[in-house]
């Protein structure tokens, strides 16, 4: 049982690392101890674990890993990653917020951006109230691991009635010369009637070894707030391993839209959970994944309708090529109290190659009777008739395919409200289609 041994090894190493470093970590030691204990019980899930059936994390974590968070890349390399002009930029390199490279001067009134370490040190009441209140350490081993071992990340707070018109761009940089595991963590709190747009980008720079990024973001959307959230995952195809947990809680009449673009990375696993914890809430979940080579992309989403009169709308699309594997597992809960829920879910995939794999598992769990729910899923090749039609108009087969793939992706890309971001994503997609 070589695999089991190796898995055991990494688990032991994580625990050892935790014990030796915990005194130097910020915040509540008790919370960290409890989380580590929970991780110890849960272990690293192998493929027998229902939720990780299609995500071979255990086998990826074979071999030696360290936990160093030293800064490796140059300032110039970092400047290049700031693709959103005019945004408030937060640089998080290997899980540590680098203030010197971030653009956080002249923050408007009502907006706080600082490192988690600073927020914890200054005992900010908002931080204290919300930190680690939503991502349940017993629900998932990686939440437990992140909560136990995180070293830093960003804390963002938007006060009541404040509108932040410029986007906030959080750039997560992973860079490693040896196999490394990092645990960045973010807490974003949007108060009543406030509005903001947040972009998180995940990139690998200059890496020569595997880097496993176990990132976690908690987002609190208070009543009447409107939040636009974007994740651009563009990690290295050989070394970038990303497990990205996003835990959202929404209050009355708030609107939260999230968009996940997975453009590259050796393995990307997204765990997105949105809890609709009051009435008249609106949630939008959009996703686009374009996979190739031996990539593995797995999107797990949970939309939890707990109160009446809420709307959720989910659209995930994928284009799968080479020997890659894409998984979509979308769960919608409509709890007993959640009458008059409108919940929609759609997952559409195009399989370009014979060796690609798609697993799709839409799930509705409905316990209320007056609801409107639908889910649809489709998987297929590019429409041969459409290709032929374009060919008949003189368009070569390669271009015809590209055109159709762009058309397919555009349904998701068009949901991006920040123009500069949309252009950036379009350019990235065009490149992957080359």
């Amino acid at each position, binding site marked *: 049982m070589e695999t089991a041994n190796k898995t055991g090894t990494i688990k032991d190493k994580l625990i050892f690392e935790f014990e030796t470093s915990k005194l130097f970590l910020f915040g509540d030691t008790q919370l960290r101890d409890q989380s580590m204990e929970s991780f110890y019980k849960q272990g690293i899930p192998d493929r027998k674990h229902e939720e990780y059936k299609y995500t071979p994390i255990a086998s990826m974590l074979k071999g030696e890993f360290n936990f160093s968070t030293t800064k490796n890349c140059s300032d110039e390399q970092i400047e290049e990653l700031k693709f959103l002009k005019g945004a408030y930029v937060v640089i998080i390199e290997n899980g540590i917020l680098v203030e010197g490279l971030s653009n956080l001067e002249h923050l408007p009134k009502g907006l706080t951006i600082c490192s988690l370490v600073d927020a914890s040190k200054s005992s900010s009441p908002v931080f204290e109230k919300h930190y680690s209140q939503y991502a349940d350490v017993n629900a998932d081993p990686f939440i437990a691991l992140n909560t136990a071992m995180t070293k830093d990340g960003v804390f963002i707070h938007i006060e009541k*009635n404040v509108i932040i018109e410029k986007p906030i761009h959080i750039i997560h940089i992973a860079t490693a010369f040896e196999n490394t595991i990092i645990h960045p963590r973010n807490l974003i709190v949007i108060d009543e009637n406030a509005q903001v747009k947040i972009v998180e980008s995940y990139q690998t720079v200059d890496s020569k070894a595997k880097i496993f990024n176990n990132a976690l973001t908690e987002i609190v959307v208070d009543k009447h707030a409107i939040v636009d959230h974007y994740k651009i995952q563009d990690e290295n195809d050989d070394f970038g391993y990303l497990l990205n947990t996003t835990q959202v809680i929404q209050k009355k009449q708030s*609107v939260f839209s999230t968009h996940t673009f997975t453009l590259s990375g050796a393995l990307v696993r997204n765990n997105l959970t949105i809890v609709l914890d009051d009435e008249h809430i*609106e949630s939008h979940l959009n996703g686009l994944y374009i996979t190739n080579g031996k990539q593995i992309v797995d999107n797990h989403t949970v939309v939890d309708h707990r109160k009446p009169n809420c709307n959720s709308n989910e659209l995930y699309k994928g284009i799968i090529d080479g020997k890659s594997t894409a998984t979509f597992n979308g769960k919608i809960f409509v709890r007993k109290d959640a009458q008059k829920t409108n919940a929609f879910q759609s997952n559409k995939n195009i399989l370009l190659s014979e060796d690609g794999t798609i697993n799709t598992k839409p799930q509705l769990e409905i316990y209320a009777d007056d609801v409107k729910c639908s889910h649809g899923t489709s998987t297929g090749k590019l429409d041969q008739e459409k290709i032929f039609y374009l060919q008949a108009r003189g368009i070569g087969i390669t271009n015809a395919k590209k055109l159709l793939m762009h058309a397919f992706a555009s349904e998701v890309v068009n949901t991006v409200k920040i123009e500069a971001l949309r252009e950036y994503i379009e350019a990235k997609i065009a490149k992957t289609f080359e």
Partner: protein
Amino acid sequence: MLSIKNLHASIDGKEILRGINLEIKAGEVHAIMGPNGSGKSTLSAVLAGRPEYEVTAGEIIYNGKNLLELAAEDRAREGIFLAFQYPIEIPGVSNINFLKTAIGEIRAYKGLEPMEAKDFLKLLKEKQALVEIDRALISRSINEGFSGGEKKRNEIFQMAMLEPKLAILDETDSGLDIDALRIVANGVNKLKSKANATIVITHYQRLLDYIIPDVVHVLYNGKIVKSGSKELALELEEKGYDFIKEVEEIEA
């Protein structure tokens, strides 16, 4: 145009409105603000004729007619338009068909000839441009699969099409991001005239930066406890609704 005197209304035996007095003249914009549960939405529901609400006392005179005697559809035909706080979805019925039917019914009520198809299309185009709504939304089923913001914009589009005399905007700002709010407010402002009046119901003062009211009323506990100029809205937001509650308690 509208005169409300000592209006009391209840739902399921519970009194929500406890003596509302309000006078609105043509050409005016009135804002009604208040904390949750103060009766703002009840007032709009009673004006539109929602059957669940029972008027227990008082009167509403609208353009010389006793409004309370009119059925909901007749109130609409007389020019009262409610932009719903939570516009409902009606699957399978296209916006266009819906508006064509509504306009047909309203015209029939007024004894007018049905509108010619080409005139209807012209009107559609004109109003669509006026409120900057996506044409694709108009041809879809009413509000089906619309985001909250799209639903609110569709309400304003319907309002533009039906050209009401008295428009009631019930928390039209909720769920709208700042860009959409500007567009909606712009549409409302363009539709204002000397002949019609608007009631804007809102929880936050942000909307009133864009739709400037002539009068602001504060509704609390089923009564209008304070009326004033636009500045009242700012004051309210700054001090919070607790400030009104305190004033109320001192006065009581």
